[in-house]
């Protein structure tokens, strides 16, 4: 039987599986067929798991026993930095080429319990460092909408797997825009949840104070379903937020009517492509016509958020990547002594961008520069936190374009790191302050390239983002 994968959503699939219109195995097989057809060209997946149909059969048994939940039998793709026991997790890097996960990350464990079916692991920028999936050690991923363009990154394989109908839902991670930017480039919904909402246990870290498991969906409702099934306190993640604190944080904004949208127009003066600005203004108009109040807000510190991010993140990267030394996991290249072994292993194992950020991080943390860079960046981060908190006493949402540029051509930005970094300029405030943000498809250019707008909401108010996201879907 033919399943309409293009228009399939989690709830539609669940209904069909419940009504026995098709089985979990047939659904998984339909995706495997598309993967077989498209993946050679797109390189969205680095590996298709060999037990997909067995997983689907187990999910089917849950249906047959009457134990199925909404995610039972739902096909997922998993980013290559999320640990899935017995499977390789290489974080797009040569240094972890042969690393097999010894345990399940909490997100995988929770999804297994729900009976989700994992199709394979998706390509990504090496250690999630990049905005185009071009820094992966395993080749580039192409954008399914236009094969000459990048899918965004770092979760580019994840985005391409979903946009190419090679999965129904896709799990990625964010440090600064790594789900929202590829969502924008591939015409998808991308949610970056509140920092500490979803467990980071079993996720290969990049910047611990910023990282968050994030999800793609074709619809807001799909992203919502996945978020709700994964958001919980986890004792194995010391940055996971406990229930009482979640409630307390959420209560701060409970007076919100969800009708007032703040726009920091001053942030868009430079660097936003005209076509994106026009599309953004048209989207704002739609909200205005739908009865939302639009106000201009001033966020002076937000202008510096990406600069602060590019100090704090590399500092955390240089620390995190020090554990990849050929001793406990991954590749080892022998040398005459242990120091030589470290250096040769890290020479063979790390790509250009990883090495660049290690050097940058080591520099900003070094004696003599620490105050000027790292400490100053932290002060800016504090000021930014207060600024955003203060903004949410005046407005319910902050609205920006998701990315200032359209999906660019493969290779276009690889020789200019700063121009690549600027893709995430509107992503940085949410990651630095821990607030949730959602990227919503906002239409296409005349040449068929997708555009996107981004809403930010107060801590633990993903519910508000889903509400306004669904509203926007109905306005399109």
């Amino acid at each position, binding site marked *: 039987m033919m399943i309409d994968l293009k228009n399939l959503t989690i709830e539609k699939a669940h209904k069909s599986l419940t009504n026995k219109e098709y089985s979990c195995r047939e659904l998984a097989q339909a995706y495997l067929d598309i993967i077989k057809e498209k993946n050679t060209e797109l390189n969205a997946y680095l590996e298709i798991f060999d037990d997909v149909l067995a997983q689907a059969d187990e999910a089917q048994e849950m249906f047959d026993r009457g134990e199925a939940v909404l995610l039972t039998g739902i096909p997922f793709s998993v980013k290559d930095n999320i640990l899935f*026991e017995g499977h390789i997790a290489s974080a797009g890097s040569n240094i972890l080429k042969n*690393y*097999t996960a*010894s*345990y*399940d990350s909490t997100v995988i464990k929770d999804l297994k319990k729900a009976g989700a079916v994992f199709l394979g692991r998706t390509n990504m920028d090496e250690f999630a460092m990049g905005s185009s999936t071009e820094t992966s050690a395993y080749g580039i991923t192409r954008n399914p909408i236009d094969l000459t363009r990048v899918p965004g990154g770092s979760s580019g394989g994840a985005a391409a797997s979903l946009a190419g109908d090679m999965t129904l839902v896709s799990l990625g991670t964010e440090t600064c825009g790594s789900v929202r930017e590829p969502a924008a480039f591939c015409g998808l919904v991308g949610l970056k949840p509140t920092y500490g909402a979803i467990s980071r246990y079993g996720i290969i870290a990049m910047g611990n*104070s910023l990282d968050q498991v994030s999800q793609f969906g074709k619809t807001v409702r799909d992203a919502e379903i996945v978020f709700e099934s994964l958001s919980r306190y986890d004792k194995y993640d*010391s*940055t996971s937020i406990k229930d009482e604190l979640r409630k307390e944080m959420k209560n701060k904004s409970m007076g919100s009517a969800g009708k007032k949208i703040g726009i920091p127009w001053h942030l868009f003066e430079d660097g936003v492509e005209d076509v994106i600005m026009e599309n953004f203004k048209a989207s704002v108009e739609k909200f205005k016509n739908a009865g939302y109040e639009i106000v201009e807000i001033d966020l002076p*510190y937000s202008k*510096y958020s990406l*600069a*602060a991010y*590019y*100090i704090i993140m590399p500092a955390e990267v*240089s620390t995190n990547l*020090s554990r990849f*030394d*050929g*001793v*406990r*996991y*991954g*590749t*080892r290249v*022998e*040398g*005459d*002594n*242990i*120091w030589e*072994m*470290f*250096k*040769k292993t*890290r*020479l063979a194992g*790390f790509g250009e961008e990883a*090495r*660049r950020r*290690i*050097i*940058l991080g*080591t*520099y900003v943390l*070094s004696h003599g520069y620490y105050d*000027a*860079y790292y*400490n*100053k*960046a*932290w*002060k*800016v981060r*504090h*000021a930014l936190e207060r600024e955003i908190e203060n903004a949410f006493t005046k407005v319910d949402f902050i609205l920006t374009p998701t990315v200032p540029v359209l999906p660019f051509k493969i290779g276009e930005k690889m020789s*200019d*790191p*700063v121009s690549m*970094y600027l893709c995430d300029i509107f992503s940085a405030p949410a990651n630095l302050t821990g607030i949730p943000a959602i990227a919503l498809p906002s239409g296409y250019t005349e040449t068929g390239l997708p555009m996107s707008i981004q809403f930010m909401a107060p801590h633990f108010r993903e519910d508000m983002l889903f509400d306004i996201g669904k509203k926007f879907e109905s306005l399109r």
Partner: protein
Amino acid sequence: MNIKDVQDLAELAKLELKEGEAEQLIKDMEGILAYVKQIEEVDVPNIDIEYPQRNIWREDEIIPADFSRDLIVEQFPDAKDGFVKVKKIL
């Protein structure tokens, strides 16, 4: 940043530089540092850097894990008798 600086940083970070990489890194760092330097101009209120983040400790007690020691050891690039094996350190 000059060649010597990059070489020192690489030594600290245990990176062996490829031919020509130091020069390329200097060029990249110039661009990136020029961008991040804009935070110098930010006038932030004199905040005490009291980091709100703090370590969360757990008791040092043995708890059962859902993975075995063997699985971890299997991932070591080189092992002997269940221990990591490396060349002589001292």
